[in-house]
């Protein structure tokens, strides 16, 4: 699967970008050459030799803050996505097959989560599990999971009653077989799109929760946090939001590309596509 993704140009680009992002997450905090928390004399300064990206409103070096914040940001977004996927996708597929009681329960649960005010839920979970980044990300993941649930369920429903699934059932296929052979490939594209979307939401939500004192505690740096701080001083440093935005965008875009590539090579269709017609963009 990985090799097949890498044979596509989109897969190569996505991998390259994500590799850089992963390297940032791994080594970023070590590369920060100045203390990301320590303010200097010049506040909101422009780029200079000492501060390649200038300083923020407290005089802290912006580049160091971005580098130092990459690990938390990336891990946070990854955790949000992972939680949302596990909590959303699996019940989404099973809701079609496990009978009406399970279906009803999961549907109502999804409705409840959608109706629940996000902040109230976040505060409640924080009160229950304690304040911390994993707890905050878990909360966000749960709140986003109805998206995955709905998307997966809709895609599964469309496949579940198709004649080719019935043909498999008439031959004695189990639910597991049907899901593996027929359903999975069809739900993957919509999940992939939702996944890229969620990764983006993850970055932004991390910073908005910081604003409430949940999850990442200021002055700890994150990409979203740097972006939020920059936005407050647009009149002084109008170009400043570009770099944190570019980092977030590149990550989300790479997730999107990767999602597309995975969809293209998934299933026999993808395999045949590659072997029969050479590599396709």
């Amino acid at each position, binding site marked *: 699967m990985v090799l097949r993704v890498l044979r596509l140009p989109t897969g190569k680009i996505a991998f390259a970008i994500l590799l850089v992002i992963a390297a940032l997450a791994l080594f970023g905090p070590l590369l920060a050459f100045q203390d990301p928390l320590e303010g200097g004399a010049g506040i909101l300064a422009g780029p200079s030799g000492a501060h390649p990206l200038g300083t923020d409103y407290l005089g802290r070096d912006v580049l160091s803050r971005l580098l130092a914040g990459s690990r938390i940001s990336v891990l946070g977004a990854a955790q949000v996505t992972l939680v949302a996927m596990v909590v959303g996708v699996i019940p989404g597929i099973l809701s079609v097959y496990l009978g009406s009681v399970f279906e009803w329960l999961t549907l109502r649960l999804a409705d409840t989560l959608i109706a629940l005010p996000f902040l109230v839920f976040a505060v409640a979970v924080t009160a229950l599990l304690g304040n911390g980044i994993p707890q905050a990300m878990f909360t966000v993941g749960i709140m986003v999971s109805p998206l995955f649930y709905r998307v997966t369920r809709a895609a599964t429903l469309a496949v579940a009653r198709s004649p080719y699934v019935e043909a498999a059932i008439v031959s004695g296929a189990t639910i597991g077989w049907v899901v593996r*052979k027929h359903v999975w490939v069809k739900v993957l594209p919509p999940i992939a799109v939702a996944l890229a979307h969620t990764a983006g939401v993850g970055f932004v939500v991390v910073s908005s929760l910081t604003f409430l004192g949940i999850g990442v505690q200021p002055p700890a740096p994150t990409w979203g946090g740097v972006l939020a701080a920059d936005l407050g001083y647009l009149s002084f440093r109008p170009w400043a939001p570009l770099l944190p935005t570019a980092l977030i965008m590149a990550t989300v875009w790479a997730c999107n590309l990767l999602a597309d590539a995975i969809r293209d090579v998934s299933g026999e269709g993808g395999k045949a596509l590659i072997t029969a017609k050479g590599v396709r963009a």
Partner: protein
Amino acid sequence: MVLRVDGLEVRYGKLHALRGASLSVAPGETVGVIGETGSGKSTLARAVLGLVPASAGQIVVDGTDVTGLNTRQWRAFRRRGVVQYVFQDPLRSLDPDLTIASSLTEPLRIQGVSFAEAASRARELLKRVSLGPELLDRLPGELSGGQRQRVAVARALIVEPRLVLLDEPVSALDSSNRVRVLELLKQLRDAGTSLLFISHDLGSVAGVADRVAVLYRGEIVEQGPVRDVISRPTHPYTKLLVGSAPTLRSAAADRAARASLRALLTSEGAVS
């Protein structure tokens, strides 16, 4: 008997789709089931396959009473490969994301046969439905409707079933492909496979079937050898059916005769 259906009733909520249908198929026999849209033809096939539950009556397939089977027992029974089903719409009966090889071998793979063995069987079967082995690596979207339907028939045959249910197998095909698939069905019949051929078109059934059953509003109103049913139809609906197929008689029933038969049917419907 390969298939014996006794007093089968199927309800979808309030809708009474089948009201006491009885039918049997002997080994090597081809039975046609004719009926208009909504008469319960497909429901009959789906009940035999266990895709819809029977509310009353009995279905015995190859000596196994399938009426009371639970999910697990159904699965075990289906894996024996006694019955197979060919769907009406060849476009949707093959998974668009699976190669022809994967679709063809699926019934065998479900039974646990190795891919290599299943693939060699698939090659044989493609030959039998006069398709080349080069199709194995293609996707259904790259095949014509007629080719797809022949692949669907080949998939049903790969487990060597004793009974094949064909739900309008030629309705979605153009006339040349229709003739091809009908020829294929005749070969099948001659090879000793029992067929239950469901159609709304008396013409396509008449050439293949030994006996026909006429299904009208969930009831089998007439049953017998093809020749008898065509030459001496007793039920008004069958008369209408035979009369409206111009190829089966030198002259089609005229408009007045058809109208009176329709009127008769409507009054009967009101009574029942």
